[in-house]
C-alpha cells in the first residue's frame, strides 16, 4: 500500500508532466531559493524616519520619539498616565532593555506576560520603514505571549534599527546561528476587527493600544 504522501506527490508529478526531477532542474530550483531573480520593492521619496512614524500613526499606534535612553522613562510614564493604566508592567527578560531607566513608582516584572497583565514592554529586532511594522522574534528573551496577551503593548526600537523593507526586517529577526526562530511577528498597529457591521474596533484579542518608543532620533517631528 502506498502512502497518501506518495500518492499526492505522484499525482502532482503527473499533473506537471514529470515523474522525477532531473538533477539540473533541481540545482536550478535550489539556486532560485537563494536568490529571487526579479526584485520589485516599494520606493518612497519622503524622509524615512517620518515615514516610519506616520505609517504607524495611520494605523492608530502612538509613537514617541526620544533622544536618549534616559528619556524612555518619561514616555512610559506619560503613556501610562494618559490611559489611566495601573503602575505595573511585564517586561521582557531581554538584556537590551536593561539600559532604559523606568519610572520609580512602576512595578516591573521581568517575565513572560500572563492573561491578565495590563501592559507589556518588549524590544523590537527592527522597524520596517516601508510599512511602519515592528519586527519581534520569539526566544528566551522575547516570549510571543507578551505581544498579544496584555491590553497595552509598549515596543522600544532604536533609530539605527530602522530598515527599509519587509525583507530586511525578516533578516534582522534571524539569529546568527542560521536557525529560523519559532515565531517572527511583524506588528503594524494594535489589534482590531471590523467583523461587526464592517466598522473598526480596537483590541479584538490582542493589545488595544500599541505604543512605540523610537530612541535616538535627533529631531523629534511634531506629533
Amino acid at each position, binding site marked *: 500500500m502506498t502512502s*497518501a*504522501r506518495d500518492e*499526492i*506527490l505522484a*499525482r*502532482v*508529478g503527473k*499533473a*506537471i508532466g*514529470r515523474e522525477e*526531477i532531473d538533477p539540473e*532542474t*533541481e540545482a536550478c*530550483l535550489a539556486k*532560485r*531559493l537563494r536568490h*529571487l531573480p*526579479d526584485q*520589485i520593492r*516599494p*520606493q518612497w521619496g519622503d524622509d524615512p524616519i517620518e515615514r516610519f512614524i506616520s505609517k504607524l500613526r495611520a494605523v492608530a499606534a502612538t509613537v514617541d520619539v526620544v533622544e536618549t535612553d534616559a528619556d524612555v522613562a518619561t514616555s512610559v510614564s506619560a503613556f501610562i498616565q494618559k490611559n489611566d493604566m495601573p503602575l505595573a508592567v511585564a517586561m521582557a*527578560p531581554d538584556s537590551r532593555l536593561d539600559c532604559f531607566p523606568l519610572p520609580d513608582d512602576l512595578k516591573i516584572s521581568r*517575565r513572560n506576560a500572563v*492573561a491578565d497583565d495590563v501592559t507589556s514592554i518588549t524590544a523590537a529586532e527592527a522597524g520596517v520603514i516601508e510599512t511602519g*511594522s515592528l519586527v519581534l522574534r*520569539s*526566544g*528566551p528573551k522575547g*516570549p*510571543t505571549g507578551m*505581544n*498579544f496577551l496584555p491590553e497595552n503593548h509598549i515596543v522600544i526600537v532604536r533609530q539605527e534599527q530602522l530598515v527599509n523593507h*519587509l*525583507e530586511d526586517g*525578516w533578516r534582522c529577526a534571524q539569529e546568527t546561528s542560521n536557525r*529560523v*526562530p*519559532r*515565531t*517572527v*511577528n*511583524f*506588528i*503594524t*498597529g*494594535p*489589534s*482590531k*476587527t*471590523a*467583523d*461587526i*457591521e*464592517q466598522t473598526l*474596533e480596537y*483590541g*479584538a*484579542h*490582542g*493589545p488595544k493600544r500599541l505604543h512605540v518608543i523610537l530612541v535616538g532620533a535627533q529631531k523629534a517631528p511634531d506629533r
Partner: protein
Amino acid sequence: MEPISHEFKARSRQSLDDPVLQSALKNLATGFVDSRRKCAEALPEFEALRDLGTEICDHALANLDFYLRRYEEQVTASGGHVHWASTSHDACRIATDICRRANAKKIIRGKSMIGEEVGINDALEEAGFETVETDLGEYILQLAKEPPSHIVAPAIHKSKDEISDLFQKHHAAHGLTERQTERRALVQEARQVLRQAFVSADVGITGANFLIADTGSNIIVTNEGNGDLTCTLPRVHIVTAAIDKVIPSVEDAMVLLRLLGRSATGQEITAYTTFTTGPKRDNDSDGPEEYHVILVDNGRSTMLGNEFREMLRCIRCGACMNHCPVYGSIGGHAYGWVYPGPMGSVLTPMMAGLDKAIDLPNACTLNGRCQEVCPVRIPLPKLLRVHRTRQYEQRIGSGVFRFGLGIWAFFAAHPAVYHFGTRVIMAVMGALGRRKGVFRRMPLAGGWTQARDLPAPQGKTFQAAWRERQREKE
C-alpha cells in the same frame, strides 16, 4: 459542510429580499472596494507586483513536486511533522487522531477557509472535542450555526442586533447576562469570553496564508491577533493548508503579502503578519510543544493538470467577490458552499461536482471585473466559460436551456438566416413600439421586463444601420 449549491436560485431570491444582507452588501461595495482602489493607486509598483506575484505562483505550481518535498524536509528539520491528506475525510481523520493522541479536550481555531472546506469543526465535535472559533466573525457564526458568507469578512451578513441577541443567549453561561448593544461592548465581551478559551485550550488549529519551502515556515495574516494566540498558547499547534499554498522563499512571500492586504481590505499590511516555524525551541518560554502540518489535496492535483491550474494561484483575498455585481446582489450564502463569488463559482463545481453546482458558472455576467482586480491575474471569466462548455458537453442542465441554446447555435451558424430573422423582428418591434418608445412586457423575457422596460428598437438592425453609415462616409 455539505454543498447546497443546487438551491442557488431559491437562495438568491431569499437574499434579494433580506434587508440586513442588502445593507451589508451596500457597505461592502463602498468599504473594501474603495480602500482597495486607494491603496493600489498609492503604490506605483502595484501593477508590476501583480505581474511578479503571478509569475511566482506559476513558478511554484509548475515545480510543486520540488517545493512540497523541500517544505516537508524543512518542517521536519525544525522539529515539526507533516501529514498528507488526499481528501477532506483524510484531513479530518488526521486532525482528530492528533488531538486524541494529545489527550486534548478543548480545541481553538483560527479562521481558515481550508478548515471550512474539509469541515474540520464538525469532525472534531463528532469525535467528542469541544471546539471554539476565535476569529470574531467566525465565532459569531459558530454561535449562530451558520457558514461564512465572505472569505475575508465571514459574518458580513449579520447585523449588530442579531449579534447582541446571540451574545446574550450564549454568554449567560459565562455569567454575562446583560444585553450589550454597543459595538465596542460586544467586542469587549467576546474578548473576555474567548480569552478563557485561549488559556484553557489544549490544541490550536490555524490555516496558513502561505507555506515557505525554503524555511518550513507558515504565514498567517490577521488583524485581531487571534491566530497568534491560537498558535502560541496551546501545547499543540496544527496547521491545515492546501498543497497549493507552498511558495519557494521568504522573498516570494513578501511580494505576495504586498498584494494580499491591499487586494483584500485595502491595507498595506494587516496588523499581524506572523511567520511560524516548528514547535517551541528548547529555551523558549512559550510556544507549543508539538507542531503538525496537514497538507490537503482535495482535488487540487487534478486541477494542476488541467485547464484550471491558474485557479490554484488564488491567494484568497476576496477582491473578486467584492467587485462582483452578482455577489454584491445576493451575498455569499446563495452560493451554497464555503467559497462564494467568482472564485467560488470556479472552485465549487471542481470540488463538489459540476452537476451539483449547475447554476454557479452561469451566475456571471462576464463583465470581467473580477479578473481586472485579481492580484494574481486569474482569468476567472475564462474558467467559468470552461465550466459552461463542460456542462454542455456532459449534457448537464435543463432541457429547455439546451433547446434554447441549440436554436441560438443554429442562427449563429447561419448568418443569412440570422440577418433575415433579425431584420424582420426589428421591423415588427420598431413598428409596434413606435408610439410609447418602450415595451412594458415581452414574451419569453418576463424576468427581464419585471424590473425594467425594454426600449423599442428604431426599426433597423445594427448591421444595417452600420452599413448605411459606412456608405454615407464614402
